[in-house]
């Protein structure tokens, strides 16, 4: 159920401002791809173009093609809602719905879409998703308690459970661990490793150790200066990027000489 993503000549704009220019890359199914680079270089923007969340911001638009198993996300007549059901997303800050219980949060993708579900199915899906996010044992006794009562790391795993409950093909993660402590980060990195078997995962991270730990391939982005568009500098196997990069600025960045 995981799918290949092909990006060709993608430009992303905020109004008239060109934020990402001329990105082309291919993301293989059942792999973890990390986007690294300094702040403001367009990693998150690019990630959000992969499930059409970019255009949620007023004035934002995209040129170019994103193919998911050959289907163009930006083709005419494409419904962004259908795209987002196939490409799930986990955000930087954990954002469980405050009005819902833990179980309702997990089932949010199903329930909010007015789909009916028998109680047995709902319970099964809840358990499956929470087990998938390594959270089941911690919350199984308080499924009907509020989601905001969990710790930050648990909330983030709840958000991952919520994302996988709609059974997407691709999961995008926008700095999922930047608000978490090392133990919770470890839990989520282990989870990414397990989820790789079933999903295509794209992760944006500021933490280069994290990129080298979890990802198979790494894309390095950079900007020439403030107000200039971000560009893809180098895209290769993670080991190559971190040990033997071809571009000088990649080597400077991963070795900590700047950024």
């Amino acid at each position, binding site marked *: 159920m995981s799918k290949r993503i092909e990006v060709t000549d993608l430009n992303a704009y905020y109004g008239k401002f060109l934020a990402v220019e001329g990105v082309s890359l291919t993301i293989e199914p059942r792999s973890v791809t990390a986007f690294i680079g300094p702040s403001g270089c367009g990693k998150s923007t690019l990630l959000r173009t992969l*499930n059409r*969340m970019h255009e*949620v911001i*007023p004035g934002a638009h995209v040129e170019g093609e994103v193919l998911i198993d050959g289907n163009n996300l930006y083709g005419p007549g494409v419904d962004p*809602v*259908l*795209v*987002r*059901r*196939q490409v*799930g*997303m986990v*955000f930087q*800050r954990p*954002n469980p*719905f*405050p*009005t819902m*219980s833990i179980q309702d949060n997990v089932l*949010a*993708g199903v*329930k*909010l*879409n*007015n789909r009916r579900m028998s109680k047995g199915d709902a319970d099964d899906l809840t358990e499956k998703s929470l087990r998938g996010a390594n959270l089941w044992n911690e919350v199984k006794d308080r499924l009907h*308690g*509020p989601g*905001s*009562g969990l710790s930050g790391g648990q909330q983030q795993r709840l*958000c991952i459970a*919520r*994302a996988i409950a*709609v059974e997407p093909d691709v999961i995008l993660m926008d700095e999922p661990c930047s608000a978490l402590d090392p133990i919770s980060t470890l839990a989520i990195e282990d989870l990414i490793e397990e989820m790789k078997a079933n999903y295509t995962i794209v992760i944006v991270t500021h933490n280069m150790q994290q990129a080298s730990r979890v990802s198979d391939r790494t894309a390095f982005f950079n900007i020439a200066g403030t107000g200039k568009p971000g560009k893809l500098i180098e895209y290769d196997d993670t080991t190559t990027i971190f040990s033997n990069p071809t571009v000088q600025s990649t080597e400077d960045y991963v070795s900590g000489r700047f950024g």
Partner: protein
Amino acid sequence: MSTTTVAAPLTNSLTAGKLPKYTSLAVLGASWLVAAAVFLMLQLSGASKDFNLAGTLFFGTVLYCVAIYLLSYFVEGVRKAKDRLVTALVTAAFVVALLPLVSLVVTTLTNGLPAFLTPSFFTQSQRNIVGAGGGALHAVIGTLFITGLAGLISIPIGLLTAIYLTEYGRGRLARGITFFVDVMTGIPSIVAGLFAFALFSLLFNDPGIRFGFGGAIALSVLMIPVVVRSSEEMLKLVPNDLREAAYALGVPKWLTILKVVLPTSLAGIITGVMISISRVIGETAPLLIISGFTASMNYNLFSERMMTLPVFVYTQYANQGADAQAYLDRAWAGALTLILIVMVLNGVARLIAKLFSPKLGR
């Protein structure tokens, strides 16, 4: 040469002078006593006829502010002294702000209770009543009907406008709506009444038109902007993160608004709606013009005059009959009923808001 240091008891360099806890109360009591003594002397010397209680409290409090500041300044230092002075001023401001409210409730209760407690007050109208007796059922019914209908009209319109402004609207149209909503907030209530009267008298070609529905329209004109403004502020408080989380789950925009944005802000929206109801339920002027007044029951919003509580209070006070006290008692009882209705509505709203507010904590 060796110096022998005397083992001096260690003094904690973090300590500072401190007045005992009861100081504030003691100084306040003393200040009032001093002021009382001064006014007592004035009374005994014949300079004033009665003992001046208000003056005692006022000058006593002023004296307290000065005394506590000086006392604290010399014992505790300038920072604490300022703190005590500002605490005294803030508390005094709170008490002063509370005084009219307490006075209002007490006066209404003492004057209104006798007529309020007569059994006929909630079972009869004023039809064929001269002098004592009768009741205000027609006015209670009228107020509930007219305000209820005004709510039915304004809450959907106001809430949908607020949703448009926060979720969809941008550019010139949204700015225009915001501007005119702000202008509408400032409309004097009599103008709303005249608007409704002019509208319906032209529409039905009846220069003396009076009916309850017109009153509901006039109240809606006053109520809609309040609902829009308060709901808009509440909807804006919903974090964008939650909307994006719902979009990322493949939830369409309208379902996101209906099932994520509205439930998250429901408590605040209900509070705003209750405030808007409290705002219009006591309106007299527009209802006097378009709904008129009557002594009889009228359950039909669409024909004939309809009495409401504020207008009831006004007419009872303005047109006193031979037994003036009976009319005054009924006016007070009507005012008391109005206050109680608002209090009950507020209580219910708080309960609802508590039930629906986002569940926090563990």
